[in-house]
């Protein structure tokens, strides 16, 4: 090809950018670039700090001694840290499924138009809009021994009920999980409501024409179609639930004992109260690996389901 046949340089660049495999990534560049700029240096610093032995009270981090993997070894032998990890996953394992069930149930109730639907939808979404610290503080007042919550339970039960929500080893855990459910069911409700509204009509109509009952349509058509939405809700809520901090901090300070001490609380104490930044960094990285694995598995499941769904739709 001669020089005269070549497209002008500018047109060539544009043509390249317009190719689908390039163009589809373009919108992400500014956001991801910003993330990289803001997060990468911090992440690298976190990794570097985890290989040092630095306390805030002991000079600057750049003059702290290099101790290799010591902080990781210490963290993996730290009973309190391991308990905090286990406890946090335990909280998430209880709270997230309940939030999903409740959110799904509420979304089903609100999917069809009815009188007052907007008001109900707004009410169900409200908890999500409150700052978690405010929820924690308010609940700390509502849940005291002789507080309104126990009074309501007493009226409902018709006999004195005094649950020690903030000072009993087990009840405190329930209070923390309850707070999370109260606030974040709203998010799963929103996700499911959108998911239900976006369901394709044709397969449902077809099933109805073929004489399927309401339950059969739900179980065999709608629920499979909603699987990607469910997976998204699971991933989003799990990620958030594993970071739980506000409620246990405000309700119980991680107590009684360490019954509600979550990873976030322990890391916060380790870094900012005990000034042991290197140990906190190592623990954060261990946690990052564990959570990443969990999210990786969840995303794989999500992709597999989407693929399966696409194949079924194509068939």
């Amino acid at each position: 090809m001669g020089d005269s046949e070549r497209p002008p340089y500018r047109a060539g660049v544009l043509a390249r950018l317009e190719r689908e495999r390039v163009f589809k990534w373009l919108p992400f560049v500014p956001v991801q670039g910003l993330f990289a700029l803001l997060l990468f240096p911090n992440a690298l610093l976190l990794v570097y700090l985890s290989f040092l032995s630095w306390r805030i009270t002991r000079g600057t981090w750049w003059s702290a001694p290099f101790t290799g993997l010591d902080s990781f070894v210490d963290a993996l032998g730290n009973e309190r840290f391991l308990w905090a990890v286990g406890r946090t996953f335990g909280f998430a394992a209880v709270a997230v499924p309940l939030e999903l069930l409740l959110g799904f149930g509420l979304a089903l109730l609100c999917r069809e138009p009815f009188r007052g639907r907007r008001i109900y939808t707004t009410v169900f979404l409200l908890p999500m809009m409150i700052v978690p610290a405010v929820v924690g503080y308010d609940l700390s007042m509502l849940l005291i021994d002789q507080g309104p919550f126990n009074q309501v339970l007493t009226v409902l039960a018709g006999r004195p009920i005094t649950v020690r929500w903030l000072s009993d080893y087990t009840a405190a855990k329930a209070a923390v999980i309850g707070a999370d459910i109260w606030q974040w069911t709203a998010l799963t409700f929103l996700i499911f409501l959108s998911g239900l509204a976006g369901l394709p009509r044709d397969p449902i109509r077809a099933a109805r024409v073929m004489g399927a009952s309401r339950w059969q349509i739900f179980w065999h058509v709608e629920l499979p179609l909603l699987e990607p939405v469910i997976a998204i809700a699971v991933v989003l809520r799990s990620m958030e639930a594993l970071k739980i901090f506000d409620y246990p901090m405000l309700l119980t300070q991680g107590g009684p004992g360490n019954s509600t001490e979550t990873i976030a609380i322990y890391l916060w104490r380790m870094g900012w109260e005990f000034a042991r930044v290197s140990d906190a960094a190592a623990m954060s990285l261990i946690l990052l690996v564990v959570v990443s694995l969990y999210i990786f598995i969840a995303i794989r499941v999500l992709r597999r389901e989407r693929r399966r769904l696409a194949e079924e739709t194509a068939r």
Partner: protein
Amino acid sequence: MRTPSRTVLTLFVAMLLLSPVPTAAQAVTGATADERAVNGAKVYLKSKGLTSLKLNMLMPSIFTAGSLEEMGNFEKLTGIGVNYSEVGILQVQAKAMSEAVAKSGSFDLWIGDPISLPDTAEAGLTRGIDDFILRGNPDLDDIVAGFQGQARYKGKTYGLFADGDNWIMVIRKDLIEAPGEKQKFKAKYGWEPGCPDTYEQWYQLAEFFTRDPKGTGVPELYGAMGYRARSWGWRWWLQQFYAKGGMPFDDAMKPLINGKEGVEALKDYIALTKFMPKDILGWATPQAYPFFAGGNAFSIMTYPSIAIAAEHPERSKIAGKNKYCVVPGYMVNGKLVRRALQGYGNIFYVSNYSKHAEAAYWLSQYMTSKEVSARLVAGSNSVYDPYRKSHLTDSRVIKARTKEMLEVHFKNAQITAPMILIQGAVEYNDVLDLNIQEALLGKLTPEDALNRTAAAWEKITNQIGRRQQIEGWKALKPAFPTKNVPD
């Protein structure tokens, strides 16, 4: 022979040479500490070419209501006001440490406890204020012995003490004097009910006055109150441990808490809890004060500001019905040993990263001066507790707190012991607190709880550096009282 004129000339030259010293650290004029603070602030503003200034302050939320009026007064007098960021009292340390890393100058001063001082000073956040003290003369000799010392670390002063938090005991005299109660009590326990001398006597009082006539398990009157919540409870055990004659460490920083004294004190601490509200494991001041002032308990061991709540003419059901007591103790080798813990004790600190450290200091001096501190201590929303000798005779303080309370408070000050104020104090205390709560919940035996604490303390000491910790502990030891009982 030196002539008189030569002597005069020599003196003159010497004065000229020395003159920069007093100029650089020129004392501020004013008859009182608050006047000097105001004058110092005005001079500072002028030297900076400013007419007004807003300082940023980190404020434990519990102090906000009691502080705003006086901060407003300072602004009217000087032009220096305060933008305050509220934070939970237990979160001050974390905020301070994050600022020690960020070095942003986001706040100029803060109110914090003495526990955090070793760490914040070592981290370079807290500014030494000896130079300002020289200029402002904040009447430190009026402060009760031992209190201002809590704002010192490694020979330097880092803050102005503002809150005499040594504990006091309050019992309900109206209940003791109710018909027949004294006789019944004496018949059962063999002594006339009143302020307990020992923890055993407090236990007996608590047992006797816990009233659950319907047998519901939720008494109408609880016999005792103290704090047992996470981050608080350890302090109440520590006071009992000190009264047992215990010391947390030996001279080589080997923990001593898991000895006989510690275990016995913990057993007593747990035993007494059964006369407290069942929810006490989740309570601190915001719950405990109104509960006691509501007439729901017979006795409480807590901060002296309980008097504000208990004697409040409108908010308290028990105003005028209280008896204030010197804290109880234990018989140690045949002698009664009483110990009051300086269970918090707030201090005005100035940040090293403040652009207006001097202005922040003048505000601190104003707030802690004889006159202003008396107004603060007497305020109806105040949690500042008396700490100056002059508070004992100040009519406003007497009106708010009662003469009896003040006299007892200052007696308790004579036997007040500090918390563990060495580097890493927050971590030492946190581990102690966690294990004490586990023992209280029955998850660990008292022996196991303290053995675990001792083992964790050893690790912390080794991690920070034993030699350094030995020095810190050695420096703290003189702060412990020498008297067994107050005069």
